[in-house]
């Protein structure tokens, strides 16, 4: 068998080294000399690419294929429901639930906020960290020169993707605060409109402090009735599932950069404001929707610039009343002596 053929079935045990597959040895040795080169099956090769995970049942730390002991340092590129919950219990923070149909610009908006923040381009805010750096980087990749693209893009959140969250730690004038943004496929919102009661199972909206309902401005300009009806139905479903109470609600117009001309922009902005007023009126004044126009992309030199995201962050991070949480007043049917002693304490606490 030739060396070339051999290398097809060879892999490298060292994480991060492409080995014979990439043609570059991290040890700078020939593949015949390198002790980390192993013969692997295709199946095993795929496994090498996967991050090793601690065995939850035993708590054992994973071992790198090379035999180096590894310690897990993060739960994954983005947060799932459980890890987001754990983070919020540990640090607190603002949960932003994003409601939008397919290709409404959810991921682009989240990614652009991250890009502006860590580059120091959001006045009054500074980057304080993130538990989902890799998740953000994946979302930003197609807008970077490193992607080899000529124009920026954002990968669509696939329909099969589960609900995930990205996290930002933001430095403000008053200290550091944590924000998590929900990210779920737009198709989920399309589908739930057929069975609106199922919206109650959208955990991020139940937990959200802020709900952003995204409306594509270019679609609003071209198909005003369809877009307005879709948004109304989404809001009605949320109201029926009691998801709007005590939340900051924003109707966020996205893709303002796609509108050609100031007149069209003004007209569409006016339509968005009218829709926000309409939604507020329909909610009986209990929930106030405020319209906000954003552009997360620049189209050309001297053309539209990214805007609205600083104002959006201002709204998200505005001081708000702490949610009140009351312990239910439960008293054991048969009180023990200890219960009797504790009763005055419970009474004051509840």
């Amino acid at each position: 068998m030739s060396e070339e053929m051999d290398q097809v079935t060879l892999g490298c045990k060292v994480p991060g080294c492409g080995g014979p597959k990439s043609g570059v040895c991290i040890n700078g040795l020939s593949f015949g000399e390198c002790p980390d080169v192993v013969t692997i099956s295709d199946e095993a090769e795929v496994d090498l690419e996967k991050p090793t995970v601690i065995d939850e049942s035993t708590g054992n730390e994973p071992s790198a294929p090379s035999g180096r002991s590894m310690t897990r340092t993060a739960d994954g590129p983005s947060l799932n429901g459980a890890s987001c919950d754990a983070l919020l219990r540990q640090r607190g923070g603002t949960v932003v639930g994003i409601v939008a149909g397919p290709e409404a610009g959810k991921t682009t908006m989240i990614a652009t906020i991250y890009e502006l923040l860590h580059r120091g381009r959001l006045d009054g805010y500074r980057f304080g960290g993130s538990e989902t750096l890799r998740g953000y980087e994946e979302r930003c990749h197609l807008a970077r020169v490193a992607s080899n693209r000529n124009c920026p893009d954002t990968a669509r959140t696939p329909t099969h993707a589960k609900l995930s969250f990205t996290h930002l730690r933001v430095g403000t004038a008053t200290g550091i605060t944590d924000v998590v943004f929900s990210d779920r496929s737009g198709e989920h919102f399309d589908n739930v409109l057929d069975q609106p009661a199922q919206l109650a199972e959208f955990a991020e909206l139940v937990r959200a402090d802020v709900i952003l309902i995204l409306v594509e401005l270019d679609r609003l300009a071209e198909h005003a009735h369809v877009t307005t009806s879709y948004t109304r139905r989404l809001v009605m479903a949320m109201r029926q599932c009691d998801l709007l109470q005590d939340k900051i609600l924003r109707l966020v117009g996205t893709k303002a950069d796609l509108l050609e001309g100031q007149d069209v922009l003004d007209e569409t902005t006016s339509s968005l404001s009218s829709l926000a007023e309409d939604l507020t009126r329909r909610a009986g004044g209990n929930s106030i929707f405020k319209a906000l126009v954003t552009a997360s992309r620049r189209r050309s030199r001297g053309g539209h610039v990214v805007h609205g995201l600083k104002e959006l962050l201002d709204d998200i991070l505005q001081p708000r009343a702490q949610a009140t949480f009351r312990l239910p007043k439960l008293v054991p049917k048969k009180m023990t002596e200890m219960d009797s002693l504790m009763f005055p304490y419970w009474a004051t606490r509840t």
Partner: protein
Amino acid sequence: MTSLLVAGMPNSGKSTFIAALRHLLVANEVPIDLCLAELSESEGHLNRLENTWLDCEIIERTKPATEGWVELRVQDKNTLALLTLRIPDLRGEAFEQPACIGQCETDLFAALSEANGILLFTNADREDDSLLIDDLVDIFGSDDLGDADGEVDPLAAEEAEKSFNPEEMPEEVKLVEFLQIANRRPLASRRRKIAIIVSAWDVVTANERNEGVTAAQWIETRRPMLAQFIAANADLWESRVYGVSAQGGKLPRDKTALKKVRRPSERVQIIGHGAEEHDLSAPLRWMLPIAN
């Protein structure tokens, strides 16, 4: 024993710094705060590094086979306090793993947990690795990125497109994630000292536009994510920024000139926080308990 961690991505100048520092401590030929009190039990790794540095050869990237835990037994010249510094000289890939695969080599993780201070390296002599396409449009105009009409052939664009590879994430992202794990559960958060070392500082000073720029100012504009992260978390990181040219020039271009320097220690340049011109031990001394 005092543990310091030398951290940085591949080619960020960690090993060159260690090599030059070793020479300065042994030679004791320029004013520095620390000197070598005695040799440790295992000096092979340091000897090889120092010899390469003295020969004005490029110090090769650290590989698994050449990684080493360096021990330096030093004495503070002011207080005469004796200290043993344990510094890992690890390949840069080890520091990328937390950001790339969400894991860290257990030895390194333990060292990070125990470290009294961190020397964090970033190389000034590298291209911007997080440039946005929009920023490129600002520089060249959209027409220059597409065809004559500014349009892009979708098929050609698709062929050229590179999919996301975590190992190619920007350096700052990897550095920030590495620092984040120091205060993430299961580790308990605590305040640490961090000396950010801008290596290849001679490249910065060689550019006329950077005249009078301090290392701290350079970091704020060229590594904004890292600078903001450190500033926003000042309760966890007490920081200083130094500009360092441990090699003294660019190799192999400047090899002949560097060979002619009578006292090799004078090849070394450091700026920031009142450090003597050649005193690479200044950031170390600041991080040691004796400095307080």
